[in-house]
């Protein structure tokens, strides 16, 4: 049988293959990825794109949550101050109801109650980063203004709107309570209660009824305030869930396209050994033919 006299073609093909494997291993090691272009593993790249979109969404939700936490905490602590003020008003009412007081003493208390009303008006107009917290969705409109034509002395300029924000896929939370559901809800209007207390103390009559009205307003705001507390705790839960998801997504990403360094390193060694062997064999491809022995 005649043997192919040209051995270089096989050797060159072998060398090309070895070099390609070496190149692949080096690329994996230097980029840290086993997939460096779509054709390396089309399915993994498709998975990576979806993974990136999910990661981006998770990070957006996390940033939504952290900015929402700021305004929620601000609103919560503002309501806390309102409650402290109302507690004060209640004790003033109790004090005013005491029959041993004369009108001069009660007039002094009226001043204090009016001060508390001003204070709460300030709280109700609290803003966070330029947006009013209790104006509904009309965040640029100051919600409460002094209004002498109103029986409570203030009127509400905000709206009843509630915004919401996504904190997860298909999970939205309301981000605010409008002032009309907090301070000027029908049936428990804080400003009306304080105005009534003030005029009761000034006239010296109906003080217990006014006290009850303030007490009711206090109870109502206290109950409404739980909205902020429970939303904040929901945000905390969502944050830890999203952080967990982020971790999983990044693990999934590593599984999809990350290089296994140990494998890549051993592949590199293998490719180098094979290359050395091919080169050594190639160097030995007979430099001799029969012609060398004919003299």
């Amino acid at each position: 049988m005649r043997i192919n006299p040209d051995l270089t073609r096989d050797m060159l093909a072998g060398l090309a293959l070895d070099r390609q494997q070496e190149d692949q291993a080096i690329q994996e090691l230097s980029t840290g990825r086993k997939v460096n272009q779509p054709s390396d593993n089309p399915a993994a790249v498709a998975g990576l794109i979806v993974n990136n979109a999910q990661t981006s969404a998770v990070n957006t939700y996390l940033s939504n949550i952290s900015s929402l936490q700021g305004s929620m905490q601000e609103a919560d602590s503002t309501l806390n101050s309102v409650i402290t003020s109302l507690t004060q008003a209640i004790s003033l009412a109790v004090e005013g109801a005491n029959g041993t007081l004369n009108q001069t003493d009660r007039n002094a208390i009226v001043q204090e109650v009016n001060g508390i009303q001003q204070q709460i008006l300030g709280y109700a107009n609290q803003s966070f980063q330029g947006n009013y917290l209790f104006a509904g969705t009309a965040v640029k409109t100051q919600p409460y203004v002094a209004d002498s034509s109103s029986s409570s002395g203030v009127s509400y300029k905000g709206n009843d709107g509630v915004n919401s924000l996504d904190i997860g896929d298909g999970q939205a939370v309301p981000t605010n309570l409008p002032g009309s559901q907090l301070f000027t809800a029908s049936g428990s209007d804080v400003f009306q209660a304080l105005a009534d207390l003030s005029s009761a103390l000034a006239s010296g009559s109906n003080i217990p009824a006014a006290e009850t009205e303030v007490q009711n307003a206090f109870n109502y705001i206290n109950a409404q305030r739980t909205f902020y507390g429970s939303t904040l705790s929901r945000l905390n839960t969502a944050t830890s869930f999203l952080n967990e998801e982020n971790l999983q997504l990044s693990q999934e990403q590593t599984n999809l396209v990350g290089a296994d360094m140990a494998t890549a390193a051993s592949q590199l060694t293998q490719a180098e050994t094979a290359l050395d062997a091919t080169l050594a064999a190639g160097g030995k491809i007979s430099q001799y033919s029969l012609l060398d022995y004919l003299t």
Partner: protein
Amino acid sequence: MATLFGALSIAVRSLYAQEGALDTTSNNISNVNTPGYSRELPILNEAPPLDTGQISIGNGVDFDGVQSVRDNILELRIDQETQQQNQLQSYVNSMNQVQSLFNETEGAGISDALNQFFSSFQQLADNPTDIPSRQAVISAGQDLAAAFQQTGQQLGSIQRGVDQEVGQTVDEINSDTAQLAGLNQQISSLQGNSEQAGMLQDQQYTVLNSLSKLVDVAVTHANNGSLTITSTNGVPLVAGGQNFSLSTATDPSTGFQDIYSQGTDVTSSFTGGQLAGLLQARDQSIPSVLSNLDNLAAGIINTVNGQSKKGYDLNGAKGTNFFQPVVQPTPGSNAGAAENMAVAITDPSLIAASSDGTKGENANALVLANIQNGAVVNGETATDFYSSLVSEVGNDVSSATDEQESVGLVLTQLQNQRSDTSGVSLDEEAANLILYQRAYEAAAEVVAAINSITSDFIQTV
């Protein structure tokens, strides 16, 4: 009746024959590294015997020329595999450029811009009256539009580059077929097993192999040694001494070159060689990627615009188009949507974040952000559609590359087989050299012997 001079002429004929054989060996050794060279064998035949009445006496050896050792079937197989190899090669080269536009493993590109864009709407929902947040939405929209624009433009320029290569390939095909027609003419005018015929045949096969790299060919061997060549689908290329040039003309509807043979459009009839690979990339794969990209862009533009118009801007006015609306060149076609994508508004207050006209209301911004999770094209989300587009490109390249590798292995094997048959082995030639040298020496000895005998005879006389 045998004569001394008869023996002398037999010996001289042998000297000629061995010289011819030595020439052949020497020619083989000289061409040991010549590409496409097929080794030659001297054709030595017993000379017709001399009839002298009742007995016939051998008349020595005749040198009847040389014969190239070649397996025509094998050459054909090599040409076929070469066609496939080069088709895949040129296809992979073109599509590799395409896939580099979708290199999502680097974390850049369209999908990143898409994520940023929808995320910017989420951030706007956080603070719908905030001008910097609104500005961020416009920037993210511009980045997304730029990503689509660039990818669309680059796809177009890759396509135009491939089109240029098509033109060059056609020129090369014409030059090869002209050469083959010339060789056909030369070969058919030669007869017998002359060295020249062998040389011309080697050239024929070399040019044919180069033609096979360019286009799929079907070859018919005529008795006079000339080759009739057509494409596998019957486009005539060479017949006898005539070659049929291919020509190109720009198709007004695509702007790319169509290929004509004898006035007929044969663009879609090629199945192998570089030409077929280029045409496949230019006319099928790249247009398909481009149209998917256009549909995706159009889907995003239409959905975002539609939702924008449902909302209200910061001034309380009804929302307008966020992106420039898609202009369909023909009904139902989104061609150019990616390349022409642009943000329509520059004033950040015009973004329709509100659903009821209240400044601080964010419901429309939320709906806009959630377009990311809704169907925008072919019932798929933008991310899903884009990821299948990218994996399709990756699949095209990876399957063609795999195929190319396996064809490459077959080709190497066939070429080895060709060398088994036709390659020059120096060992063999050295052995032949000894053989012919010894035979020459022996024949020379015979001449010397006859010389000595005749000289003895003359002296005796």
